[in-house]
C-alpha cells in the first residue's frame, strides 16, 4: 500500500505546537474533519477511542515517531494524516524520548488487513533515516506529499 493512497494532504500539519499527547491527537483529528474525511460530530468520539488505545501501550514507537490509531465506523477506507512537531511532544514513548513525527490512522472496523498494510507501509519507510530526516525538514503539506510519493516510488 502506498503512503500517498491513504495520507490526506489537506489534513497534514507541518508546524504542530502542542503541550500534550491528547492535544496533538485532537489537532490531527480536527484536521481530518476540516479536510472533510470525517464528520465533525465524530471527532470527540474518535479522540476518545485513540486515547483509550494509547492506554494499552503508547504508540510512540521510538526514533521520535508515534503512530496513534483507532478503528472507527465513520470511515469506509483507511485514512491518515501526518503532524510534525519541531519542539517535540511527550508521548510516553517506548524509548522515553519526545516525538517529532506523528502518523494518525483511522481504519474501518471490518478491514484489519488495511490497517496492517498501512502500518507496514509507514514502518518500512520510517526505518529509512533519510526519509525521517527529509520528513522533519518538510515545510508544507505539499513538501510532505512529494516526499511520500518519492518514497512510494523508491526514489529516496
Amino acid at each position, binding site marked *: 500500500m502506498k503512503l500517498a493512497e491513504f495520507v490526506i494532504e489537506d489534513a497534514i500539519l507541518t508546524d504542530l505546537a502542542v503541550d500534550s499527547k491528547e492535544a496533538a491527537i485532537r489537532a490531527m483529528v480536527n484536521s481530518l474533519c476540516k479536510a472533510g474525511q470525517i464528520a465533525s460530530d465524530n471527532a470527540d468520539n474518535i479522540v476518545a477511542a485513540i486515547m483509550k488505545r494509547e492506554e494499552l501501550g503508547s504508540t510512540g514507537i521510538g526514533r521520535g515517531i508515534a503512530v496513534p490509531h483507532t478503528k472507527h465506523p465513520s470511515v469506509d477506507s483507511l485514512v491518515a494524516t501526518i503532524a510534525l512537531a519541531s519542539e517535540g511532544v511527550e508521548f510516553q514513548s517506548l524509548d522515553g524520548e519526545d516525538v517529532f513525527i506523528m502518523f494518525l490512522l483511522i481504519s474501518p472496523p471490518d478491514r484489519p488487513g488495511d490497517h496492517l498494510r498501512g502500518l507496514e507501509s*509507514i514502518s518500512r519507510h520510517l526505518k529509512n533515516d533519510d526519509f525521517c530526516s527529509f520528513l522533519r525538514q518538510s515545510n508544507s503539506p505539499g513538501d510532505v506529499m512529494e516526499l511520500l510519493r518519492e518514497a512510494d516510488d523508491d526514489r529516496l
Partner: protein
Amino acid sequence: MTSEGPLCQDVTVKLENGLHLVPCSRITEFVRDFPGTISIRLDDQTVDAKSIFDLLTLRAPFGTILTLEVSGPGAADLIKGLVALFECNFEPD
C-alpha cells in the same frame, strides 16, 4: 550460561487483527535485554524481533505461521517465553 542455538519454532498468529502494534510492542519489550539474536521469519522475509519497525513490516494477519529463530545464551528459555506470548494472544497474566 552457554550459548545455545539457533533454536527454531513455528508459532501461529491467533490475534483477530493480526500482528499489529500492541503485540509487536510486547515482543520487543520481551526480547529487549536478550544478548543473542532473535529473528522472525515469514516466507522469504526475515526480521529482527528487537526492532518494532521491522516487526511491523511483517504484516502478518490472523492465521499466519511465523518461524522464530533464536541464538545465544538462554535461547531455550527465550523461545519458550515467546511461544507463550503467542499462545496467550499477548494478554497479560
